[in-house]
């Protein structure tokens, strides 16, 4: 009879934490949480994610597209993708914090490392999959190699390329949750500092991180469908 009620109570407590500041056991009467703090930490998490994703894109996208265009470096593009999956995020962030230092400047490259493999691999395979006769036709009408990449290969590879970017964005956002270990306050602060925020804070943090990830994935999926040309959509139906 009482079984579902503690569950409702814990999620209810978490939602209360999101909107109204709560008492804490360790802050000496100072209240923690509340809407302002939630918004502040969400924005921070988004900022960290956006910076790292931008850095990963700047590095991995041109390399992946170029390698795919030239049809070279398959081992590099695919190998890095697989090796990247095996990097334990916790160890990476902890190591960067311990050896190089804490703060946004050190955290951003570390998070970018997590985003690079999926972007690189998908950019490479996406471009490789583009029909070769189409590329030859583009060359035949006098397009330069850069034009071919930008106006033929990239548009046709958008679904695969965006798939990599979505994977990278989600992985970076997820890892940004442990950003407090590198001295950057993100939503993970609610989760990691259990003694300050209490059970309600931990659950609220988890809930917000999950919702943010779903929202990010949803908006990138929307962006992908906007970027995909109508002709390509017809083909997949």
């Amino acid at each position, binding site marked *: 009879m009482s079984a579902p009620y503690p569950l409702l109570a814990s999620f209810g407590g978490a939602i209360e934490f999101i909107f109204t500041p709560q008492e804490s056991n360790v802050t000496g009467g100072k209240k923690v949480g509340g809407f302002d703090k939630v918004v502040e930490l969400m924005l921070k998490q988004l900022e960290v994610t956006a910076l790292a994703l931008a850095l990963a894109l700047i590095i991995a996208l041109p390399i992946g597209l170029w390698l795919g265009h030239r049809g070279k470096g398959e081992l590099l593009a695919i190998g890095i993708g697989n090796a990247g999956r*095996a*990097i334990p995020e916790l160890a990476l962030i902890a190591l960067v914090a311990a050896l190089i230092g804490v703060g946004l400047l050190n955290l951003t490259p570390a998070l970018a490392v997590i985003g690079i493999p999926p972007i690189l691999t998908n950019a490479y395979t996406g471009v490789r999959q583009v029909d070769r006769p189409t590329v030859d036709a583009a060359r035949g009408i006098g397009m330069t190699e850069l034009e071919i990449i930008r106006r033929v290969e990239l548009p046709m590879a958008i679904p695969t390329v965006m798939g990599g970017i979505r994977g990278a964005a989600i992985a970076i956002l997820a890892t940004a949750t442990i950003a407090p270990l590198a001295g950057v306050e993100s939503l993970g602060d609610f989760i990691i500092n259990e003694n300050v925020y209490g059970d309600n804070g931990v*659950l609220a943090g988890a809930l917000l991180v999950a919702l943010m990830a779903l929202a990010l994935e949803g908006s990138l999926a929307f962006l992908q469908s906007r970027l995909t040309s109508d002709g390509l959509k017809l083909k997949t139906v």
Partner: protein
Amino acid sequence: MTSPGLLAAAGQVGEGFFHERSSGTLPCQARTSHLFCFDWARENIDRYGTPTVQHLELVVFSLLLGFAVAFVLALLAHRTRWLRPPLLASTGVLYTIPSIAFFFLLLPITGRGRDTAIIVLAAYTLQIIYRNTMVGLDNVPESAKDAARGMGFTERQILWRIELPLATPEIVAGLRIASLSTVAIATLAVFAGAGGLGTQIYGQGNLTFPTTIIIAGGIAILMALALDIMLLLVQRLTTPWRKAAAA
């Protein structure tokens, strides 16, 4: 040998972490900026035994559970087409929720510990294994199925003796991707109170001691590599005709 001040300083960082084994502080341990302390590693390598076994257990159980569920879902979707979009969407949602958040969302329901970690890690593998299994089944040439039908195979026989064997490379490829990321993400299981190699990264004093982060992270990477090679062998053994075709 060691000055009390140094011990106190190390104690502040480590809170007993440094003193469990060694009676004094090793010279390279006190300097937190030191990249790798070989003396400490030599003396303490056996403390990684239990976490490594725990980690492997988490990974293997999650992969088995994830594979079982994803495989059944894929067979269902293979037979019942309208199930495909909702299954893809729901496994996608599970894949999108960051595992660390997922651990804590489950805490009020399944409590702290290994079960919670295994559920989350398995949920994370569903999308990859399900999608690869579907791709594998979809890629089976219609002509192969027609030939089997012509030989009098029932639909069930076609599934088990034609489609699944031909889909094995894709299915195992999915398992390989899933195992790589599961080994890495299982380091976060420490937040769910499930042990594993993460305890040697996130435990007391570990975060400021690069040596232990490198050892634990290194073991995780080696474990991922070993599992990947094992699955590659499974792939070779279960698809002997590929070798024949290549030769």
